[in-house]
């Protein structure tokens, strides 16, 4: 038997809808708080627990400081606000937007490695489509030979459309060669190669020098 008035739920629903549209960052904060990277203290039972939390926060700040690259005037530093929550895409929301001069299509790097491109810009935030997004495509070159290829994103990104005569080796660096992006930004390394399903090209499996789930600060090329 119902023991509350339906208006209570209507008020709750309206409040949630208002928060969703007007104050979405509260939701991002809540989700970040639920994630394992979070170090916020929810248990104030004792000083020992608080001390542990402070140590963890200190470690997190040190990690962020270590991640901060040498910013040049051509790059804008940004923090990761939020992440796409499903496995269909791979996007990051950054804390800088059009008011800081961010423009769609700009390269986003982590420790000097290209991790994605700005796909959408808002007033104070920007959405980044990462290399691990299934719609991500990027013209690149591989190794000292400079063989042309196309990186196709996804959970397991590949370099495709490589000419069969290319002499590729494990460890060859893949770097950006796309219009609108800085030339020569490292993206990944070749792990192994195989023939494409249509038997016309070579494709390469890639390895990445970072774990995207732990990335907290990035640079945006200006």
């Amino acid at each position, binding site marked *: *038997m119902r023991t509350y008035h339906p208006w209570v*739920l*209507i008020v709750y629903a309206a409040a*949630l809808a208002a*928060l969703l549209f007007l104050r979405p960052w509260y*939701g991002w904060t809540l*989700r970040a708080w*639920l994630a394992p990277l979070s170090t916020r203290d929810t248990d104030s039972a004792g000083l020992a627990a608080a001390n542990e939390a402070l140590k963890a926060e200190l470690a997190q700040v040190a990690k962020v400081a270590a991640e901060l690259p040498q910013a040049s005037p051509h790059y804008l530093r940004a923090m990761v606000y939020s992440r796409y929550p499903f*496995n269909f895409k791979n996007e990051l929301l950054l804390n800088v937007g059009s008011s800081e001069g961010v423009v769609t299509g700009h390269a986003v790097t982590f420790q000097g490695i290209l991790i994605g491109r700005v796909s959408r810009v808002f007033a104070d935030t920007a959405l980044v489509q990462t290399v691990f997004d299934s719609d991500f495509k990027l013209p690149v070159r591989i190794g000292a030979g400079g063989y042309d290829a196309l990186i196709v994103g996804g959970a397991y990104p590949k370099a495709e459309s490589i000419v069969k005569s290319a002499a590729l080796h494990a460890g060859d660096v893949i770097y950006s060669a796309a219009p609108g992006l800085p030339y020569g930004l490292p993206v990944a390394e070749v792990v192994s190669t195989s023939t494409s399903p249509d038997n016309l090209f070579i494709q390469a499996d890639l390895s990445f020098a970072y774990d995207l789930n732990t990335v907290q600060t990035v640079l945006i090329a200006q």
Partner: protein
Amino acid sequence: MTRKFLLAFLALSVSLVLQAWLAGAGIFLDLSFATLIALAFFLDFLELLTLALGVAFVLNWQPAPSATLAFLAGYPCLIHLLYRLAPWQIWIMIPAAIVVGFTALLFVAAPGSFAAAPGLFFGDLFAGILFGYLAFFSLARA
């Protein structure tokens, strides 16, 4: 609050926390969506709508409307209405609604992602059905 609503809130909270925790480790499962679909068979429309908006609020990732989130909140409400119109065996309808919902969510969000890694989708679907049944068993006795 009714006992059923509190149980539903608890089940959804558990799935949301687990989903966020796993996502932080790089494992993306739509547990809260599956739980919402299962709850659609037990809750009143207003109760379901409130919980669906709560999930959308927590899972939102950008300061703009999103078709993905609209579907995530709207699909369980649609299932609720369909079930009211044509009630049938819940234990069969839950996995069927989850399979249809997950597939439709894939096409709403990014259909290309299926070809890139079909195993991820089927793993997500399996975990979703499992969580849907967990929610079903939790609420069936309430």
